[in-house]
């Protein structure tokens, strides 16, 4: 770990004035005088401790006033400040009532200890857990290198990796909470150095590896997430979430699925189905959504939707088990709605 200075940001403007780079930019091509943000610090300090990230200054945005509120309005929806901890989201009764899939996703993330320090903004902006990407001894595409170690059909250790959209990078996004947020059509509120605010749908917040190998989301230097906003549910909105892990106590997802539906009786009127740990970014399965919409929610239709979701799956040498795992998990998540 290198020596760095510490700046305690007093406001969003103050923070944006200080910062000059992002974790992603630095990992891709490190610069001399990088100043980066840290909120909960869970992901940032992992990189710093590994010696892969060598910031000259860290701007602590964790204590900026006003970013730590949860508010719910039945007409306007849910607003969660970017510095709200996962533990706070997980124990919020309104979120449990109105946004069950988010409640479930948050409470299956990491460990109770980590949920106490992890913030929502940091969680959706964290980098992926591919062990080659995280290794100082493997200079992969994501770090400006010349190859993907995980993809290699003979030597790649890719059992945890992507089965969809894996043409450029085969990592999977690390945030399982993002799976649920995207299913709820959440929006990310971002403020830039000029004080301008933009509201970006989750579907557009993440950047596929094919578009840009350096980044997993659209955040640029001198931009900061201030809020995540979820539209209000109707009285017919139902949701569910399942995460499959090797260890229930504490693990990253092998396959996770969030389903948000408008239902009429036992019929799906519209569906939002998102898969986590399937692709380099949270993956909206339009195929599954189309397959279940206007259908009765039953085992047969749920399975058909799940299979439709996997039609484009292209497993790697060691992760073909993920296909039946997703079929099972999508099916069960849809059935949990009814």
């Amino acid at each position: 770990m290198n020596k760095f200075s510490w700046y305690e940001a007093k406001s969003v403007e103050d923070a944006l004035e200080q910062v000059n780079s992002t974790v992603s930019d630095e990992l891709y091509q490190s610069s001399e005088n990088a100043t980066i943000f840290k909120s909960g610090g869970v992901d940032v300090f992992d990189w710093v401790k590994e010696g892969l990230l060598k910031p000259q200054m860290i701007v602590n945005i964790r204590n900026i006033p006003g970013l730590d509120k949860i508010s719910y309005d039945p007409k306007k929806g849910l607003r969660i400040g970017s510095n709200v901890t996962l533990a706070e989201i997980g124990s919020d009764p309104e979120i449990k009532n109105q946004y069950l899939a988010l409640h479930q996703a948050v409470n299956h993330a990491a460990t109770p200890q980590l949920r106490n320090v992890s913030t929502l903004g940091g969680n959706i902006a964290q980098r992926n857990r591919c062990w080659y990407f995280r290794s100082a001894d493997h200079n992969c595409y994501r770090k400006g290198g010349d190859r993907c170690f995980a993809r290699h059909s003979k030597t790649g250790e890719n059992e945890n990796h992507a089965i969809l959209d894996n043409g450029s990078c085969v990592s999977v996004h690390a945030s399982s909470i993002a799976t649920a947020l995207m299913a709820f059509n959440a929006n990310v509120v971002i403020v830039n150095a000029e004080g301008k605010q933009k509201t970006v749908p989750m579907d557009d917040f993440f950047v596929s590896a094919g578009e840009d190998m350096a980044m997993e989301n659209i955040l640029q230097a001198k931009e900061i997430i201030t809020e995540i906003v979820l539209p209000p549910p109707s009285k017919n909105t139902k949701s569910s979430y399942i995460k499959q892990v090797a260890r229930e106590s504490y693990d990253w997802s092998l396959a996770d699925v969030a389903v948000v539906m408008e239902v009429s009786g036992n019929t799906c009127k519209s569906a939002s189905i998102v898969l986590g740990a399937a692709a380099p970014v949270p993956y909206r399965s339009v195929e599954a959504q189309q397959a279940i919409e206007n259908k009765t929610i039953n085992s047969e239709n749920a399975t058909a939707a799940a299979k439709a979701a996997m039609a484009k799956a292209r497993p790697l040498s060691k992760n073909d088990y993920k296909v039946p795992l997703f079929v099972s998990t999508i099916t069960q998540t849809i059935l949990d709605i009814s």
Partner: protein
Amino acid sequence: MDTRKEKFPYGIPGHNLGEVEREIPVEEPPVWPINDKLKVIGKRVARIDALEKVTGKAIYTSDIKLPGMLYAKMLRSNVPHATISSIDISKAKSLPGVHAIHLIENTPKEGEENSSNKYPMVKYVGQPLGGVAAESLEIAKDAISLITVNYEEKPFVVDMERAMEINAPIVFDTPITQRQDGGDVGETHDGSKGEGNVRGPSTSSFFGGPRGNLEEGFNEADVIVERTYRTQVHTHMPLETHGVVVDWNADAMTVYASTQNTAAVRNEMASIFNLPKSKVRVICDFMGGGFGAKHSAGSFGPMAGNLAKKTGRPVWLMLDRQEEHLAEGNRPNSMQYLKIGAKKDGTLTGIQQRSHGTAGVGLGAGVGRIAQILYPCPNFATEQYDVLTNAGPGAAWRAPGNVQGAFGLEQAIDEMAEKLNVDPLSYRDRIDPSEVRKVERQRGAELFGWSRRQAPGSSKGLVKKGLGVGQSTWPRFVTLDSSVEVKIHKGGGVEIRSSVQDIGTGTKTILAQVVAEELGLQVNDIKVNIGDTFFPVGPGSGGSVVTGSITPPTRNATFEAKTVLLKLVAKKWETDSSELFMADGQVSHKTNASLKMSFKEATQLMRTSQISKIASRSDDYGGFQQPWGLAYGDLGSVQFAEVSVNTDTGFVKVDRIVAAHSCGRPLNIGQLESQINGGVIQGVSYALYENRVMDIGTGHMMNANVHQYKVPLSMEIPEIETIIVEEYSGRSSTDAYGIGEPANIATAAAIANAVYNAIGVRLYEIPITPSSILKALGKVS
């Protein structure tokens, strides 16, 4: 030697308890009755150091802070195979706060020209190359990152099956020898054929070599089971990493070490630094786990010693988690071919075993003796090969070899039972002559509810339930070089001293129990001072030897000290000391109830400040199977597993384990349960979770951390119930043995058998994962 004859309890209470007459040395104490009739022994006694541990007051090696102490960090290779052309330390040297840098260099043998290579050849990622001592750990780490090592890289191989191929890169081009007996107790012999990376085979153990004629055996067989089993590399991951603090002054070198063998570390450090043993003191008061990987000073011990020598200051050197995974030991993998034959009535006619395993750049990757001895079979042969790879060296790991061996054998026996159309438990009744395992099967089956077991694959629904069983045996090893001093202080106070360390299982407490029982005192009246080589040398904590080796001399020394004290009391009362006894904190007369004196008063009669007696482990009553300390009998165990397998997702959950174990006379029920729990948890982990993932393209371990190297946490741990069977055999003054190894041997096999029972398809490889279950079920290709 003067002897006398005594009758000892013999057998299993509630089953076949009887008596056996033994001839024992006259100076040894009278026989203890069975545990029911004792006050402290065999009871649920709380650990004497529990409070220190749970309040964080216990001082572990990494907690040691000495005046002027420096912090050290090791320099390690980050390539798997190379010669080092140069190492540039100039930048590190000039970093403020750096006090010394020590590089590991080749020392030319006497009469040889200076070796052309200044530095040793790099054989694996994580190999130690040097170290830095600095004012802080942070500075030491920074200094390490400023050192440039220039490598000339060579072809490497980390995958065992690739390493076995004719054209594989060669790990060692000089002959090296293979150790016998799967890396644990046993002699070294030159089994080297020097062909490629394969060494061996080892074909014998201290239980002998091949038996009978395999071909005839298989010809006699009506049924044959022939399979290949695979197990993974499993790293130790003790909570406390390896490390030392070396404090070297003019008088002596003091080494605070996280070790399971203080005496061995002392001997190594004395030898390396050319010091008399009397001037090296190794101390290990509290120990955060070892599991077999902490028997030596490693490379970090000498490194800290050299840095202390260069700087004249104490040096702290504890490893980090990544270093642990890469370089401080692992349980080798295995690929075992096993063929067993039986007649229609189940009688075994032949067992053939051929194994390959890799301990990286180390040797000792065999699969143990379990196929040789668990079931008597007239025709038996094993060939156990070591395969060298460019990976960190293996180390003893809780029942070395035998855990791998049990995974194969106990599945093969299960499969044989099915082919013979016999219940797997009844089949073991038929072929296993062990009385203790018979009782364990009976008691275990009842508690477990074995009668619920359904035909394989017949469990209904998506999540299928399965029940399975696995057995094991472990020798009763005794370390004869085990000594202890017992002191009774004038005015009260009793103290035990030995270099034996408490690896964490409760050795301190059982020693206090033994002394308390003998003196009629409370456990808390006894001060246990162990883990210090300035005291008499005790055994290393390996091979499950500690309890069987150190408790008899502890009782004997206590008895000798007590005899001196009773003589003083007898003189005062003008009676014979044989008329006196000690109980409930008092010295009393057997027939004259008016003669009573507290223990404290009795000690006031002493002429000197203390009565001090040192005793060493004597031979077992009736002798040994092998004179070096292979005792008669064994530590038999039977474990039952209940699992749930989700046939849709492939996830396996171990719901429950019933573990039935024996260890001679049990000394402390709570500690035994705790130790069995630990063994079972590691077994569950071996079956389902832990796996060293090596990238064969780059030679690096990909999960050298605690989040991707998956040890089980609270939700992965099943309900564990233990059954401890008392088994008396009158072999020593305590008749007690350890449980460390046995607790870990059968678990993975029992789980694999339960998985088979659940889904009706057998898995021959661990860890069992969603991927392997879904493959077995034909859900992926």
